[in-house]
């Protein structure tokens, strides 16, 4: 796989994340000392400062922390309106993402999907979870 950092798509710390995206796998860091997960990646665990961090695949299940519908044009690839959200992964870390395939409210369960991009790795997006939504305070 050619380096994505060389094209400024990734940086040397995030290269493994974007390489995993190419294979439609969402990976985050896990500390093998204290068990904490973190994202975006750092060279050590922010919770316990151990350098024993490794990439693990996330379950792809999450809950909406916040959500907004963007109604003005921001980037060419996304004609408005579209849904921008913060999703708390089951493992803990929070991601900025888009919601596709339906509307969601704060507290709703969502699951991972992928959006292809021209000449760039696909990005993780989320869809309303098929199981009944766990509506309530996230």
């Amino acid at each position, binding site marked *: 796989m050619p380096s994505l*950092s060389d*094209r*400024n*798509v*990734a*940086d040397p710390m*995030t290269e493994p994340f*974007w390489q995993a995206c190419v294979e439609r796998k969402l990976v985050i860091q896990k500390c093998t000392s204290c068990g904490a997960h973190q994202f*975006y990646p750092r060279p050590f665990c922010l919770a316990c400062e151990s350098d024993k961090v490794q990439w693990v695949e996330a379950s792809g299940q999450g809950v909406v*922390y*916040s*959500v*907004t*519908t*963007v*109604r*003005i044009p*921001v*980037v060419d*690839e*996304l004609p408005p309106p*579209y849904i*921008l*959200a*913060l999703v708390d992964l089951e493992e803990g*870390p*929070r*991601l*900025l*993402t*888009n919601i596709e395939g339906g509307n969601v409210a*704060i*507290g709703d369960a969502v699951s991972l999907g992928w959006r292809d*991009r021209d000449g*760039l790795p696909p*990005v993780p997006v989320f869809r309303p979870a098929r199981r009944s939504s766990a509506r309530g*305070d996230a």
Partner: protein
Amino acid sequence: MAGRPTLAPVFIAGAAETLLGKVTDQSELSMVALAAKEALGEAGLRLRDVDAVFTNYMGEEGSVQLGEYLGLQPRYAESSDMGGASFEFFIHHAMLAIAAGRCNVALIGYASRQRSRRNRKPAITATDGTLAAQFEAPFGIHFPIGHYALSAARYMHQYGVTPEQLARVAVSARKWAALNPKAWVRDPLTVADVLASPLICDPLHKLDCCLVTDGGGVVIVTGRERARDAAKMPVRILGAGESHAQWHVAQCPDLTVTPGAVSGREAFAMAGIAPGDVDVLEPYDNFTHAVLLYLEDLGFCAKGEAGAFVEEGRLDPGGSLPSMTSGGGLSYNHPGALGILLLIEAVRQLRHEAGERQVPDATIAVAHGTGGLAFSTASTVVMARE
């Protein structure tokens, strides 16, 4: 008194707005230069007396560029980028530097022609290699409305705050603007008008968002000896505080709390005051819900209660906590970095020279700045009429 500053007293001895609104006959640097002359005139000082320069958003190594333009070679200088709150941070830093004898006369200045030049960038691009480009840009987050909308949505959900309560903040600002001849918009505004304006990023309507105008200003900070010669009444800086939180919105653990909770606590403790002592509040009203968060984080009401707090007009002319008394970023002027104008309006109020919008007997004022993306930075300044 416990918590009172042990520092030598420091004052704002001059304050002046630049040209405001739409400025087509001056450059940013000439706007600052003209305001500097006016502010120094109030302080009874000349450019040659200035030995410290503070600025932000005046180009690369901004204090160097502004210093050169004004013919200054300072012995204390700073052009830290703390967003729109930089000028409150600079008051904090200038206060400490002057009290420590590292400089005598600090010039804090800024101007923007963001309206005339239409040079606001709405988005970051996905291939500049930064973390924001990698993890925010692909999802089309408007910079900064998308960040603030996510904060507003979460805050309203968590505390049951209503769109009407947010809109009420814009109504308060407009009531003040009606009393300020320099305000950009002065016609009457209702809660219904705000809610009828187009949604930009839910739950924020167009009229929940601040203006985009040209403007700026200059503030002169000095010690007691120089302040004694001021042509106008100097205003004492009682305390200041600062903090910062996240840059990337997903890194913020709680979007309903701002770093103002830290900067406010620090500033109030240094000043030896409590929220109940504040006569005038100048909050950084870039978005309506932002003012609600500040009211809570600065201790004017409990978490989640600011919506109800503003509903009865407490922030209005004649209210118990007069706020945004110039008309604020929502109705008076927002030059991209509002913090300098918050300080200037606080000075006008404490000098009792605010005309129709004067808060009677104003003795203690607070300017509270924020900056960055959904409350990345915060700095609070407490000022008093001596």
